[in-house]
């Protein structure tokens, strides 16, 4: 996801009430299906940083007979920071560069076959889109799954459209790159 | 003047670039206008005569003012089916034309520009028809009549100019919806707007009625031996009432037939036809009303004719028998012409309804709805509402014939009961002329255009 901030997502999960590290990781993976799963170590270090910055504090420790668990809770400043972040506009495409375009240009520079690359990339994109569509169209898919799949699908679709227009204009691009 | 020229050029370009339907509309409109001009010119020429003359045609019927005014009224009445026919022609390609003119509005044309262009399109077609008819009539007139009076010339000029002007005006008027909104055509829910042409038709009929009254009022007083004013006025009232009643009756029958059959339909063809009738019962009401009137008048007339020729053959009169038979024949010819025009209107209307729906029809055929089912639905659409209407009007006509026979103390001419049957058959044939067009409409090529 774009400019994903683990700090703020954990703060957001804490907004519903105090929670411990393992529980936060489980809820994150549930709430954001299809996102890269959080490593437990990452949750732990992020929570420590939140405490250091005064955005969260330790509620207490308990063990419930199992391993020792530290409960965390958001501070008032943490709540303020969360609402600031949630309302903040994400910078729309701050850097116009991407891997697909870089590969096409490199293929032209090195005398490779950019058309073949684009075609193969297109097939891979379609395959991924079919997977995501099957996921969201499955009976009983919850809305969170549908929406997160939609997000990825729209981005893949944008890539695809960019690839088809680029494929159609490769000759001109090749001439331009070679001339420079 | 410059604006007019620009509009004229645009109207011409639009017509030239449009498909066959548009040319059909132009040709049919010109034909209708020619017929209207012809009838009106004949009426005017006769109306300009004062007192007694010797006219070499029509066995002396045109010699005396009394019978002459009858002929004039007959000619004017013939304008009614012609107007109905013109109304039907206006529907040919109406959807495409609406779309085109709405496109003009979207492109920034002002309402008045669109009106002018539409008026020019219709007006030019009418001008063509009126010019042809006028030239023919004048040539014919000059052979019959050595020196037509100034009044006759004025009348002829008036008619020749009035037909295209009225055509143009009605063309502009019928466009209210499109002119009001550039998107007028995008989505139509409920009955399609057939009201414009309907109102124009009624206005035209009224005009004819007033003209007929005037004619009778101005030519008849010369014949002081007959009562005047009262009877023609009553006649006009009856004709108008019967006409309006016929339109209402045929619309109502169509609606009722649709409603009753839509619920009970067992076959796909009946269901489609019934629902189409229920959806827009008024679309064919004008033509069907004309069929109704022609049936009543035709049946009644044949009855009267039977009785009268019987009387003429068996008794002696001051005038030669040909004087009466010619009168009867002329009336018969007028009714036959009216019937022919009505049938053409019916055929044109059916063809138009097909042309408008051709993309949908092609989609139906693509989905596997057999062509025969679509054809049957098309015929049923005409056959279903006409059956009760023709039956009723046939009964009315037979009643007139029977009443006249009883009045004259002659045998009742039962043969006239066959007239409604013949009319019904002829109507079905007229509707069936569209079946080849249906075949063409179902080509998958139609699927390619939105």
């Amino acid at each position, binding site marked *: 996801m774009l400019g994903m901030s683990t700090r703020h997502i954990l703060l957001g999960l804490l907004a519903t009430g105090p929670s411990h590290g393992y529980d936060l990781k489980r809820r994150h993976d549930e709430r954001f299906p299809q996102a890269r799963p959080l490593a437990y170590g990452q949750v732990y270090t992020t929570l420590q940083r939140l405490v250091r910055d005064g955005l969260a504090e330790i509620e207490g420790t308990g063990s419930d007979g199992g391993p020792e668990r530290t409960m965390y809770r958001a501070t008032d400043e943490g709540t303020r920071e969360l609402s600031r972040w949630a309302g903040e506009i994400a910078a729309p495409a701050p850097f116009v560069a991407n891997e697909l375009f870089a590969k096409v240009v490199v293929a032209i520079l090195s005398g490779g076959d950019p058309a073949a690359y684009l075609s193969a990339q297109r*097939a891979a994109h379609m395959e991924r889109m*079919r997977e995501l*569509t099957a996921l969201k169209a499955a*009976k009983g898919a919850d809305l969170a799954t549908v929406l997160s799949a939609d997000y990825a699908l729209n981005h893949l679709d944008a890539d695809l459209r960019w690839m088809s227009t680029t494929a159609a204009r490769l000759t001109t691009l090749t001439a331009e790159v070679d001339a420079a | 003047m410059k604006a007019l020229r620009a509009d004229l050029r645009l109207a011409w370009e639009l017509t030239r670039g449009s498909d066959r339907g548009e040319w059909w509309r132009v040709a049919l409109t010109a034909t209708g206008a020619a017929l209207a001009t012809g009838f009106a010119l004949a009426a005017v020429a006769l109306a300009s005569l004062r007192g007694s003359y010797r006219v070499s045609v029509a066995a002396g019927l045109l010699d005396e003012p009394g019978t002459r005014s009858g002929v004039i009224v007959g000619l004017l009445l013939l304008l009614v089916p012609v107007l109905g026919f013109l109304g039907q022609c206006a529907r040919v390609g109406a959807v495409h034309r609406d779309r085109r003119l709405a496109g003009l509005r979207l492109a920034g044309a002002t309402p008045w520009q669109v009106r002018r262009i539409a008026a020019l399109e219709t007006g030019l077609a009418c001008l063509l028809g009126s010019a042809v008819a006028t030239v023919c009539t004048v040539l014919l007139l000059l052979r019959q009549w050595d020196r037509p009076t100034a009044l006759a010339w004025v009348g002829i000029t008036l008619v020749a100019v009035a037909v295209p002007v009225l055509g143009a005006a009605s063309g502009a008027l019928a466009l209210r919806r499109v002119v009001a909104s550039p998107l007028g055509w995008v989505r139509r829910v409920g009955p399609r707007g057939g009201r414009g042409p309907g109102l124009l038709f009624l206005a035209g009929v009224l005009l004819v009625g007033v003209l007929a009254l005037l004619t009778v009022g101005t030519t008849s007083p010369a014949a002081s031996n007959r009562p005047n004013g009262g009877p023609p006025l009553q006649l006009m009232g009856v004709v108008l009432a019967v006409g309006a009643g016929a339109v209402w009756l045929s619309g109502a029958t169509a609606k009722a037939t649709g409603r009753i059959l839509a619920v009970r339909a067992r076959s796909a063809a009946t269901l*489609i036809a019934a*629902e189409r009738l229920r959806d*827009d019962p008024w679309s064919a009401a004008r033509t069907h009303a004309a069929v109704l009137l022609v049936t009543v008048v035709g049946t009644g007339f044949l009855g009267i004719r039977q009785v009268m020729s019987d009387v003429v053959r068996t008794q002696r009169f001051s005038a030669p028998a040909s004087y009466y038979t010619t009168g009867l024949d002329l009336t018969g010819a007028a009714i036959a012409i009216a019937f022919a025009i009505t049938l053409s209107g019916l055929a044109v209307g059916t063809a138009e309804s097909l042309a408008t729906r051709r*993309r*949908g029809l092609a989609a139906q055929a693509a*989905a596997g709805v057999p062509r025969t089912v679509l054809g049957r639905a098309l015929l049923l659409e005409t056959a279903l509402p006409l059956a009760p209407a023709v039956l009723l009007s046939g009964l009315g006509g037979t009643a007139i014939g029977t009443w006249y026979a009883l009045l004259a103390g002659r045998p009742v001419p039962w043969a006239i009961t066959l007239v409604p049957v013949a009319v019904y058959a002829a109507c079905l044939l007229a509707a069936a002329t569209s079946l080849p067009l249906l075949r063409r409409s179902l080509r998958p090529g139609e699927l390619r255009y939105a």
Partner: protein
Amino acid sequence: MSRPVPLLSASGLTKAHGRTPALRGASVDLHAGEILAVTGASGSGKSTLLHCLAGIVRPDEGSVTYDGRRLADLPEKRLSELRRTEFGVVFQFGQLIPELTALDNVALPLLLAGTDRARSRTLAGEWLERFGVRGQQDLRPGEMSGGQAQRTALARALVTGPRVVFADEPTGALDSLSGEQVMTALVHTARESGTAVLLITHDAQVAAYADREVQLRDGAVAPLGVTA
């Protein structure tokens, strides 16, 4: 693993509209129960390919075989019966009769097949229910939203239990959410009943509902970069 014989197969199709060639040697196979997307730019011959496969248009050259029968050998009457009973079609719009209610539109194919009116309407109602438009059953197509009309069209295409559904840009006139509902409904029903679907679209997100994709370019199937 050898694949089973395809249910519907076209080979070397060519077709011209007047002097404009639409297809130049297109070949495609559709297997039973498979959802196949045919994609390509405007004018690449997608719709013409569908028309040929569904027996709506006869190709100039090449042949279409359905279930072991060559469509070219069948008379028009038989083709139209085939389209009515074993195929279903959904277009972008226009396939519903504007004067009929949603219920009667869906009942129409059954009525044509000789089912009586009451039974047809009952079955049609069940299909409208499946597509979530039962509440609109007494509306005419013009009174429904685009999405509702398309779901009604799907119900009409599927009501006879066809083996193949041909869908030509079924979501072309819809917003993305309505399109999603239409596609989900189509895919679920097709999977449940084992109906094969030939889906024409220019939209990759719609094509992604299919099991497999065939790309048309200039009237022929374009080789895919990677064969799946």
